[in-house]
C-alpha cells in the first residue's frame, strides 16, 4: 500500500466538506441571504433548547434506522430505493394497530412496532420477489412501489381513515394516548424506549454483519453473486433476507415519523419526509461502513432539524439542507474517483521506475 503524507490525506478528506459548504454558501448568496446567518440559524434551530434538541433526536432516530437497514441491502449489492415506500407501509400498518387495537400502553406500542416491521418487510419483500424471481431491477421496482405506497396512504387518509369531523387530507385522527410511548419530559419529547430500539438495531446489525455466516454470505453475494453461488451461498435467499431486514427497520422508521414528528401523533401525507433517500446518501457517503452510521446521521439530523427554521427566520427555503447533503455526497464520490486515479498514476510511475 501507498502511504501518502498525512497532510495530503487529511486534505483529501476535508476538501469535499469545504467544497460542499462553499457551494451552499454561493447558492445562499444567490438567493440574497447571508451564509453565516444561515449557518447560525441551522445550528441554533437544532440546539437552542431542549425542544429543538428533542426534535433533532427525533430526526436522528428514523434516519439511523433506515441507514443501518440500507447498510444491509448495500452489503448484498442491492439498491433498495424502495426504502421510502417501506417507511410508509410501516407507518400505515402501525397506524392501523394504533387506531383499532385496544391494549394497554406497553403492549400497544410493542404491537405497533411489530406491525411496522411487518408492513415494511412485506413491501420490501415485493421488491425482492420482483428482483430475484421476475427480473425487474430493484431501483425501478422500488420507485414504483414508493409511489404506490403514497397513493395508498393518501387514499386511506382521505377515505377510510379520515377524521369524523370532515374530509380533509391533513391526516388521520390523533392517536390515543396508549398508542404513544411516554416521553422523557414535556419539553424534551424523546422516548427512551424508541432510542433503545434504535441502539439495539444498530448493535445487532453491526454484530450480525461482522460475526455471522449470514453477514458473510451477504457480503459475498454483494461482491460477486456468481462466485458466491459456486461457493455454496444461497444467493437469492441472501438477497431476499437483506430486503426483508431493511424493510423491517424502515418500517419502524416510518412509525417513528408518525409518532414523533408532529405535535400530535397521526398519519399524514408525506410521512417519510425524504428520510429514506437521505439514508441512501448517508450510506453512499460512508461507503457502507456501519460504525460510521450514528455519527453521520447525527450531523445530517442537525442540518435537517435546524433548517426547518430557515423559512421562518430568514425566508430561505429549507431545501437548502437537501442541497448541502446532496452536493456533499456527490463531491465525495467524485473525490473517491480522483483519489483512485491518483493512486493508479503513482502505481504506474512506480512500475516504470523499476524497469
Amino acid at each position, binding site marked *: 500500500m501507498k502511504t501518502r503524507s498525512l497532510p495530503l490525506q487529511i486534505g483529501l478528506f476535508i476538501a469535499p466538506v469545504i467544497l460542499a459548504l462553499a457551494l451552499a454558501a454561493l447558492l445562499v448568496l444567490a438567493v440574497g441571504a447571508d451564509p453565516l446567518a444561515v449557518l447560525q440559524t441551522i445550528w441554533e434551530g437544532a440546539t437552542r433548547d431542549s425542544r429543538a434538541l428533542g426534535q433533532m433526536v427525533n430526526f436522528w432516530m428514523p434516519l439511523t434506522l433506515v441507514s443501518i437497514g440500507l447498510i444491509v441491502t448495500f452489503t448484498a449489492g442491492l439498491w433498495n430505493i424502495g426504502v421510502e415506500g417501506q417507511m410508509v407501509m410501516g407507518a400505515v400498518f402501525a397506524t392501523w394497530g394504533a387506531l383499532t387495537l385496544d391494549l394497554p400502553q406497553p403492549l400497544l406500542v410493542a404491537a405497533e412496532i411489530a406491525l411496522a416491521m411487518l408492513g415494511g418487510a412485506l413491501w420490501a419483500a415485493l421488491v425482492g420477489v420482483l428482483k430475484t424471481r421476475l427480473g425487474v431491477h430493484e431501483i425501478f421496482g422500488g420507485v414504483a412501489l414508493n409511489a404506490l405506497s403514497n397513493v395508498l396512504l393518501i387514499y386511506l387518509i382521505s377515505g377510510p381513515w379520515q377524521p369524523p369531523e370532515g374530509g380533509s387530507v391533513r391526516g388521520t385522527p390523533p392517536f390515543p394516548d396508549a398508542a404513544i410511548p411516554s416521553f422523557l419530559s414535556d419539553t424534551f419529547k424523546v422516548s427512551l424506549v424508541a432510542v433503545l430500539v434504535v441502539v439495539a438495531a444498530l448493535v445487532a446489525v453491526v454484530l450480525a454483519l461482522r*460475526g*455471522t*455466516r*449470514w*453477514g*458473510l*454470505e451477504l*457480503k*459475498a453475494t454483494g*461482491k*460477486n453473486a*456468481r*462466485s*458466491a*453461488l*459456486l*461457493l*455454496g*451461498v*444461497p444467493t437469492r435467499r441472501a438477497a431476499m433476507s437483506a430486503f426483508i431486514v431493511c424493510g423491517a427497520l424502515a418500517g419502524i422508521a416510518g412509525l417513528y415519523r408518525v409518532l414523533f414528528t408532529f405535535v400530535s401523533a397521526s398519519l399524514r401525507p408525506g410521512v417519510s419526509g425524504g428520510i429514506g433517500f437521505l439514508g441512501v446518501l448517508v450510506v453512499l457517503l460512508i461507503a457502507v461502513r456501519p460504525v460510521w452510521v450514528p455519527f453521520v446521521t447525527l450531523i445530517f439530523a442537525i442540518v435537517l432539524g435546524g433548517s426547518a427554521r430557515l423559512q421562518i427566520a430568514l425566508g430561505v427555503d429549507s431545501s437548502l439542507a437537501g442541497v448541502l447533503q446532496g452536493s456533499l455526497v456527490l463531491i465525495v464520490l467524485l473525490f473517491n474517483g480522483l483519489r483512485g486515479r491518483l493512486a493508479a498514476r503513482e502505481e504506474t510511475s512506480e*512500475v516504470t521506475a523499476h*524497469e
Partner: protein
Amino acid sequence: MDIELRHIHKHFGPVHANNDISLSFRGGRIVGILGENGAGKSTLMKILSGFQPMDGGEIYINGARVDYTGPQAAIRCGVGMLQQDPLDVAAFTVLENFIYGQAGGLALKRREGRARLEQICSRFGFSLDAETPIAQLSIGQRQQLEIVRLLSQGVKTLILDEPTTGISAEQKTILFNALRDLAARDGMSILLVSHKLEDVIALCDEVAVLRGGRLVGTRDMPATTSELVAMMFGQELPPQTRQPLNLEGAETALVLENLTLRGKRVTVENLSLRVRAGEIVGLAGLDGSGQEMLLRACVGLIKPAHGRVMIGGENLTGAPYRAFLARGVAFGAAGRLEEGLVAGLSLTEHIALAHETGALVDWPRARRHTEEQLRHYNVRGRPESRVETLSGGNQQRLLMALMPPRPLLMALEQPTRGLDVDSSRWIWQQLLARRANGTAILFSSAELDELVAYSDRILVFYAGRVFEIPDASRASIDELGRLIGGHFDGASEA
C-alpha cells in the same frame, strides 16, 4: 508486402512476454507462428496489428518505419488481424458489420456495401447473407466475415489467431483454400498463429517458433510433426510413464444416462458415461465443443434437456447446484475471479465461507484454520489479504483449499490454465492425492500433453459429438490432435 520486426519487447507485470524478437515476412507466403500457450505468439501478433503497444522495438513495412496508434491505423498500413473471438457486434447484421469501420460519408450506402460483400464472398465461396444478425452465425462464418471486411479495407498482410478453433472441417477447407489463393494470386502475407501442428503442416510455407517469449528459430516447410514439436518444446516429449490403476470393484461416483444438453452453439446428444471412484476422465476438444457443458451438467449448473445425472447412486437430475455440493461434488471453473473467488473478500473470509458451517463465525478460529490451509496448500499470501491480490497460481491453490478434502467427484474446467510448470505440477500432485483417496475426477484441458499424462480415459468432443479413448496411456499427442480436429476414423463413438 514485406514486414520486418526488429527487437520487439513487451512486458506484462513481471512476465517478459516478448523478449527481443526480430522477424521478417515476405509477401506471397504463408507463415506459421508456433509455440505453446504463453510462448508470446499472440502478443507479438497483437503488437504487429496495433492492438497492443510495444514496450520497445521497431516495425518496418516495405522498408519504411511505421508507428501506429491502434488497430485501425495498422489496417491503413495494410496489416489486419482476425482475432480468435472475431471482433464484431452481435447486435449488427452481416452487412452493418461489414460496413462499420470502412471509410465513407454519412449514409450507409447499403447497396454498394452489399455488392462489395457479395463480390468478395463469391470469390472465396463464402456464404454470408447480408441481412442475418451476427448473433445467428457460427464462429466460422464470423471469421469469414472478418476476413472479407479486412480485405475490403485493403489489407495486404492478414494475421489469423487460432482460426481453426471451433469451426467445422468443411469451413476449415474453405478457409485454407481462400488463404492459399490470397497468398498465391494476390501476393499477400498470411501469418497463422496456431498450436495445431496439422494445420501448420497442411498450410504453411514457413514457420517461426517462439518459446518463453523468445524466438527459437524459423525454417521452411515441409517438416514433420516431431521436428516441429522438438522446436516448440526444446526436445521431443518423453513418453509418459504411468501406474496402471486397478479400478475393479471400485464404487460408481457418477453415472450419466442418455444425457442431452442443449447449448447456444452445440448440442451434446444422448451421452452415457460411468465414472468410478478414483478414475480420472479427461475431456478434450476445442473451446465450445461441448465439454464445458458436460462438466457443468455434472454439477447441476446446467439442466439437461433429457436423460439422468446420478451422483453416488442418487438421481440428482434437475436438482440445484447446492444439492450436488451437499452430495460431495466439487466444481472448479476456468475463470477464477469470475466464477470461484470473490474479489474484495479476504482469504480468511473465503476459508470461512467454505468451511465454517455454524450460524456464528468464530473469526480467530477461522484465521488459524486459514493459516494452516495456506501453509498446507502452499499459498503465498496473508490471511487478511484480498484474494484479487494473489497471483494466478496462488489463486488456483486457494481454490483447492476451498474444496472439500475428500469429495466424491471433482469437475474441473482447465485446472492449470495460465499456470507455470511448477504450479501445474503441484496442482496435479494434489489431485492425484485425492484420487488415491477415491475421488473421481473429470477435467477439461486445452493442453494435449496434460490430457495424455493424467487421464485414465479421454473423451474427445467435436461440435457436440463425443468419442472415447478408453485407454489414455496408449494415446499419442498426435492422435489426440487429429481427433480434436474432427478426424474420427477408427475411434469409437461414446
